[in-house]
């Protein structure tokens, strides 16, 4: 049990360590509160909307071809088994929270390297029957969305000028110019 009380360490180190842990725990609670942590245990797309930076992805998904047939985690989390699923969720979720809370989010979002095979695997999971004949499953060099680029609509990301999402105001002219 010595390792639990950190007895072998000097007293100062022990205080610092437990203090640090306490702070970390406190922060975790705060983070969990701010970020609606409980919702991450569910599969609802609204979960992802806890972060406004996911809004474009949400909107484009809704308008894309799968808005009515698949939710975010159907594609973005592995479904091979529950362990892999939740491990991936935790790992990815933690990284995103970190990026988000430290305001380091990039201007343009892209699938991370690790995410590509996960998503591709999910396309296959649902569509294996339809593509049994063609040599697509084997093609790791080419993701499905090379062609089926409308999964999220055409222009995406945080900085997309998604005109569809903006009110279309009429243009105006100057009175003295109209004569």
């Amino acid at each position, binding site marked *: 049990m010595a390792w639990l009380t950190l007895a072998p360490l000097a007293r100062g180190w022990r205080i610092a360590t437990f203090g640090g842990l306490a702070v970390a725990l406190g922060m975790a609670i705060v983070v969990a509160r701010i970020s609606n942590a409980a919702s991450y245990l569910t599969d609802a797309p609204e979960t992802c909307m806890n972060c406004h930076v996911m809004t474009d992805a949400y909107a484009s998904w809704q308008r894309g071809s799968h808005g009515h047939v698949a939710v975010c985690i159907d594609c973005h989390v592995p479904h091979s088994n529950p362990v892999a699923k939740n491990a991936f969720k935790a790992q990815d979720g933690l990284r995103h929270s970190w990026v988000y809370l430290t305001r380091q989010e990039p201007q343009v979002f892209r699938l991370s390297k690790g995410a590509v095979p996960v998503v591709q695997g999910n396309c296959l999971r649902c569509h294996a029957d339809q593509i049994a004949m063609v040599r697509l499953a084997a093609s790791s060099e080419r993701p499905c969305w090379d062609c089926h680029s409308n999964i999220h609509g055409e222009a995406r990301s945080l900085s997309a*000028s998604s005109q569809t999402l903006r009110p*279309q105001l009429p*243009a*105006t002219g*100057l009175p003295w110019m109209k004569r």
Partner: protein
Amino acid sequence: QERNAEAQRPSLVLQPIAEWEPDNAKWGANYPREYESYARTALDTTKTKFGGAFPRDYLDEFPQLVVLFAGYGFSKDYLQARGHAHAIEDATNTKRIKVPVNAGTCWTCKSTDVPRMMAKIGVKEFYAANWHDLKKDITHPIGCQDCHDPATMRLRITRPALREAFQAMGRDIDKATHQEMRSLVCAQCHVEYYFKTDPAEGKKNYLTFPWANGTTVEAMLEYYDAMDFADWTHAVSKTPIIKAQHPDYEVYSTGIHAYRGVSCADCHMPYRTEGGVKFTDHHVRSPLLNIANSCAVCHRWSENDIKTRVEAIQTKVANARKATETAVVQAHFDVAAAMEAGATDDELAPARKLLRHAQFRWDYVAANNGMGFHSPQECTRILGEAANEAQQVRILIARLLATKGKTAAPSHPDWSTRDKAWAAVQAFVKGQPPKMLP
């Protein structure tokens, strides 16, 4: 969570902005993000392979321009454009401005004071005024007032020339969609123009876009030919030349991005996100300096792949441009050689007509920004036609020289550096052309 609130922009207007307010800083009090990014257009040390915001000296880099513009201001002083914040400064300093009298029209595209002054003294009067007299009233460089309605912040057209050009094409600019406006505000300035002087209509130096027949190079040539317009007579070949100025909107309109509804602002003023707020980046500049926000939003390739492709497109245009410039320069000298051999204006008329067209075609591409990227195939096509025409000039001249008993190829003066080209051209300007025939 709290940042969700940030994203839902409330009406942030602190102080209402007066109509015609020229001072960008006053607008900036209400819209700090837009203002701060706008202020960065003062940066002038960025370089890309063919562009960027620094005062590249075109005449040093391309001595052939000195010959091509022989007898015109552009052979004296021609720099690459910088950011909007420099507009007044650069227009004031260029040697192209004539002293003591220069058209007031030149101010039109340089300052937020222009709409105010036009409203005050009248449009015709503004154009007809002397540049130097207007100077004291023109103090704020291109800014908010040029593109925005201060009351609603909507985009609006503040320059009459664009509105009139639409009318001439039978189109109503007030019917433009929001997405079109995101290009049309630029089309107030980034377009080919000329100054119309017609006492019958009471017009002096009246800013006009030659679009009545359309905005393609062919439509403009037809327009200018019909009115026999020339900006100047070429010092070497005595050909009546039309200067093309930055037909950015016109060239863009023929490209794939315009076809797909992508606007100037989509690339040159992409959205940017800071904290939870998404706003329009008003640091108008080369998109190659900001590929992530600009191109990569639509093109999910690596930034490096995007840059490589753009440069490959531009390099092809740059090479075609060089080949065309050589042909057009040689055509000017060839025509001069025929004059040396005693050819008459009548005999030279067909050659000069072709040469006028070749030069305008070339300039339509050369004066347009982005080294052809806005419409790669169109720019390459036009340069090909210009070279073809220039070489036809030279065939005509070779035959003409033959009838004058001159069988050797004319020997052209050296134009390999700016200084040499300048010296060569000045000899023509002074009426003492060098001997080119044996």
